């Protein structure tokens, strides 16, 4: 079996996600075919039974996430994979998993939307939908890999975070990363650290409930529950994968990006350096909860913040909300199905620096 013989593999993002799941001892996958995430289901159907696990193809995405939650409650590490339209269908049950505190991992391979959009083209326009797609005040974790290695590392981390925080975790990739084939170093058995769960009696409900799992409509119970569900994640951001920093420590321009756009930004930092410009990149690995503190700190010290993303400014809006003065923040956005190129980012950097 290829994924375990050699430490260094040549994998697509989708494949890296599956191997991370298998190495993290995920033994249940329920899914529904959807481009550009389908290979994950295909590979799980092939590999999971060989590892003593289970693959089930459900009747829709609502059923897929429901089966994942059921299997997780039954004691299996469980995951599913989908794209935007499928995520839309899963939202109610993602909220259920947050409310009932069921660990589960959802790999969302973003495609061009809204609606059916263009099934094979990339986008990064599901940032808000992953955070606020399910109704009600809640918190959950969204990780954003920017390549094959990150797909492996962050998916592996996602399973541990799901168990540790007892929450749904979304791994947010996109159509390019999913199919981009790269060198990936997989973990050996002794490098694997797994958070294990205690097995307990099941008394599970999506209703507001007391600590015994019985439903309640007492204001204090409701208030405490919702506060605890949010704070158990938001109060422990240090345990989540932090942003990665590239470039000089005191730059004039700071690029903030994630996913495939961060790859272009990394190259743009290199190109800028060759031009003698002080430009750095903050690549967000955790999108939600949003890494406010790092951004506030770094944003205060630079003249300009450029936010590069394949949408109309979803992360940019959050960056502004961190308290960075609005005139400092500019977006590099593309919404035409093509990706942002390093040259386009460099051009924007040059424009900004000339104006500064």
């Amino acid at each position: 079996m290829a994924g375990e013989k050699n430490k260094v593999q040549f994998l697509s993002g989708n494949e890296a996600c599956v191997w991370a799941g298998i190495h993290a001892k995920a033994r249940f996958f329920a899914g529904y075919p959807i481009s550009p995430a389908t290979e994950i289901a295909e590979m799980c159907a092939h590999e999971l039974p060989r590892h003593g696990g289970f693959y089930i193809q459900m009747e829709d995405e609502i059923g897929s996430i429901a089966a994942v939650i059921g299997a997780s409650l039954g004691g299996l590490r469980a995951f599913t994979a989908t794209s935007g339209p499928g995520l839309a269908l899963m939202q109610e049950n993602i909220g259920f998993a947050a409310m009932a505190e069921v660990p589960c991992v959802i790999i969302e391979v973003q495609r061009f939307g809204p609606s059916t959009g263009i099934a094979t083209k990339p986008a990064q326009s599901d940032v808000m939908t992953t955070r606020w797609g399910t109704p009600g005040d809640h918190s959950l974790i969204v990780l954003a890999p920017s390549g094959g290695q990150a797909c492996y590392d962050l998916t592996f981390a996602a399973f541990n975070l799901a168990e540790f925080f007892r929450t749904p975790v979304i791994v947010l990739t996109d159509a390019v990363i999913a199919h981009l084939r790269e060198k990936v170093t997989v973990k050996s058995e002794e490098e694997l650290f797994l958070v294990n769960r205690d097995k307990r009696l099941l008394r599970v409900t999506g209703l507001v409930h007391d600590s015994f799992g019985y439903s309640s409509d007492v204001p204090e119970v409701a208030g405490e529950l919702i506060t605890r569900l949010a704070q158990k994640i938001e109060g422990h951001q240090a345990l989540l994968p932090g942003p990665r920093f590239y470039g000089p420590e005191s730059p004039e321009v700071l690029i903030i990006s994630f996913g495939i756009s961060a790859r272009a930004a990394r190259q743009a930092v290199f190109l800028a350096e060759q031009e003698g410009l002080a430009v750095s990149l903050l690549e967000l690995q955790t999108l939600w909860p949003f890494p406010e503190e790092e951004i506030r700190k770094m944003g205060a010290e630079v003249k300009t913040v450029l936010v590069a993303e394949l949408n109309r400014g979803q992360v940019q809006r959050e960056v502004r909300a961190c308290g960075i003065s609005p005139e400092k923040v500019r977006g590099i956005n593309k919404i035409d199905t093509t990706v942002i190129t390093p040259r386009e980012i460099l051009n924007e950097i040059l424009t900004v620096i000339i104006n500064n």
Partner: protein
Amino acid sequence: MVIPDYKKYLAVERLPHIWCAGCGNGIILKALLLVLAELNFRPGEILLATGIGCISRAGDYVSFQRFQGTHGRTLAFVTGLKIARPALKVFCLIGDGDCAAIGMGHLIHAARRNLDVAVLVANNLNYGMTGGQFSPLTPNKSLTSTSRAGKIEASLDICRLAEVAGANYVARTSVFYHGELRKYIREAISKTGFSLVEILTPCPTYYGRYNKIGGPDEMLTWFRDKTVPLKKYLQMDKQEQKDFFWRGKLVE
């Protein structure tokens, strides 16, 4: 007859329940708990799965493991749960809206996969929790809060649907026939694979009141008079069948 000790399965401290006076849900829950006591299940080996709606609050009144999912999705959750814990004995207690409207797809596929679960459908002929709207199982011409001039759509026979989807055991009765109800629940639970029991149950607060059937006792006798054994039902002509529910075992 010795009544088995069903109270150990009941979360007595959670009573009184939220159901209206004259509701049949308590009869259904008691019938289920009696069967569990007869079969002497240990609390750790059983789980009650419910959805959303009046009957789905039953999970709050049992002392053993319970799972309450989202509206309509109970069987999809249970599909994953049973794969992870095949030895766990799972009973689903869901309503007519849950199983025949929003969750019908999952019901069909659970039956097609022959998921090892006993599905008890509490059919009170309307959505009680939201105030008495018609469901797919509400009879044609019935008055409900969303069909003030009578329901214009045809109703659905969920038992026949379960049959063609591949269910191993399908039966229908009413809470009026308590002995029969317990017998069918016992048979459904004892059967391996997918089994379904549709239980006609009174909702005097909405269905009974809107359709001028009367209070709790009139509703119970209404179910007595409106149900005929399957054999007799099949001998009726199509027009006459419209006025009755069949009861009995369709698949065993």
